[in-house]
């Protein structure tokens, strides 16, 4: 491998890690809901893309500066998150392990259909911020839009970690995820914590959706399914229920994905990510940070 190849390899990893912040956010969303309810919300990535689409519609309807698209997407994500709980969880028997899997799968398809019907399935351009900024770092170039996406992702993650580990609401959320019965006996309303978790992860997903739009420069309904798979892979590799795990795994998957794309081309890259998942499932099924046992 000559010097230029080496530089390109590092460059592609760096780009991938920066984009990986979006995977990290999606992984956190899956993992948080799993932690609190012990349920997988399959519609999460689709809802995130849906929120980004909704923000575009609002942007087109009202004359607001494109920078607000992130705020709008976050708000839409929160609303959609609440709706997903209401439709997909509230009336569904939670003690049936397959019921919510089916209801959220249905929601995934529903959200996808709504997006396809409102946009005729045509990809839409998404406002890109700082795309003309290129930060040279030695022999490497760091893309301004990716840096922005990465920074935004980091800010969200720090705020989320503060919320979960430092506030009363966050402590209550963790109490519910560790001991649902005992937390009800500490006066915590499990239902309220569940709804709030859906809204908070929805906000996170909305931001992730907008970040994906901003990083790629467009939105397409075709994004929903691959992102669902990536999000699930990230939370399995990170360790189901672990937020630090999801962050690390998101960056890891982002970096490796871009590396494989650089080495083997876009058609093969997902194959290697799947292989990575397989390796984890066989040799480290608990993920990078397996959550502590002892939940009732």
């Amino acid at each position, binding site marked *: 491998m000559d010097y230029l190849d080496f530089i390109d390899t590092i460059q592609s990893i760096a780009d991938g890690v920066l984009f990986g912040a979006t995977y990290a956010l999606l992984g956190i969303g899956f993992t948080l809901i799993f932690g609190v309810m012990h349920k997988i919300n399959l519609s999460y990535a689709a809802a995130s893309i849906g929120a980004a689409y909704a923000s575009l519609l609002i942007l087109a309807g009202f004359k607001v500066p494109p920078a607000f698209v992130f705020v709008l997407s976050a708000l839409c994500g929160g609303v959609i998150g609440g709706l997903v709980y209401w439709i997909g969880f509230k009336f569904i028997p939670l003690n049936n392990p397959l019921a919510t899997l089916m209801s959220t799968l249905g929601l995934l398809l529903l959200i996808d259909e709504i997006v396809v019907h409102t946009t005729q399935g045509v990809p839409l351009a998404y406002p890109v911020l700082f795309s003309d900024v290129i930060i040279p770092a030695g022999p490497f170039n760091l893309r301004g839009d990716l840096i922005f996406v990465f920074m935004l992702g980091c800010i969200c993650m720090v705020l989320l970690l503060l919320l979960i580990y*430092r*506030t*009363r*609401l966050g*402590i*209550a959320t*963790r*109490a519910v995820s*560790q*001991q649902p*019965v*005992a*937390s*009800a*006996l*500490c*006066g*915590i*309303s*499990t239902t309220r914590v569940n709804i709030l978790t859906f809204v908070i992860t929805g906000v996170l997903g909305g931001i992730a959706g907008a970040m994906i739009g901003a990083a790629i420069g467009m939105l397409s309904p075709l994004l929903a399914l691959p992102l669902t798979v990536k999000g699930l892979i990230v939370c399995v590799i990170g360790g189901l229920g672990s937020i630090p795990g999801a962050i690390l795994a998101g960056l890891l998957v982002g970096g490796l994905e871009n590396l494989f794309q650089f080495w083997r081309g876009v058609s093969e890259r997902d194959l290697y990510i799947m292989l990575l998942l397989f390796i984890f499932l066989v040799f480290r099924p608990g993920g990078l940070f397996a959550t*502590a046992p*002892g939940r*009732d």
Partner: protein
Amino acid sequence: MLELSGLSKHFGGVRAVDGVNLKVGRGDIVGLIGPNGSGKSTIVNLICGLFPPTAGNVLLAGKDITSLPTHIRVGMGIARTFQNIRLFGQLSVWQNLWVAQNSDQHRKDGSFLKRWLGAPGAARAEIDRTLEFFNLEKKRDELAANLSFGEQRRLEMARALAANPSLLLLDEPAAGMNAEEIEQLDERIRTLRKTGITILLIEHHMELVMAVTDRVAVLNFGQKIADGGPAEIQANPQVREAYLGSSNVK
């Protein structure tokens, strides 16, 4: 304070609790004893609302709470400990108490943000007092999962008291404790009695039950077979039979 009327819980064909009537007066310490599988823990679960009864009612301070969800009942003043310890293992000792505090009782305590980010003023002092009472003040920042068994048992009771309950349900608090720890538990229950709290004590350890309770109710196969003062219960032939087998074995 607490009244159970005709309370029943059937699991399939098993009558875990079968038409139990029980009255616990304010400030009383009532023991609930019976052989294994006699329905003691099921009664506690019914009082907390972990599952609905098949028949009968639970009344708290005259109000029918039979159909209320658990966290609402807790807000009305019920607290309990678990037979198998169920602490929030990944939270610190202090956080275990903080999360269990009744936020309504501290509504005027500091600003909203202060209450959200920590326990201000009176709430903090209260947690500190409770930790001291249970001799846990040195462990306040330790994760609950890292405590010793005896400390975890104490933290269970401390957490149950964090919300200032009026009715405390203790589900086998002495299980697995050594003589010295039971002695301390005995003392703590006596101290708590002075605060006017009502306690329903479920326990196998007869010495403890007979020492601290005003009244004892005995369950066997889901039915109440005796109810009276400790001495009276000890002399009751039906109770002896339930515990030791029928008298002709002797």
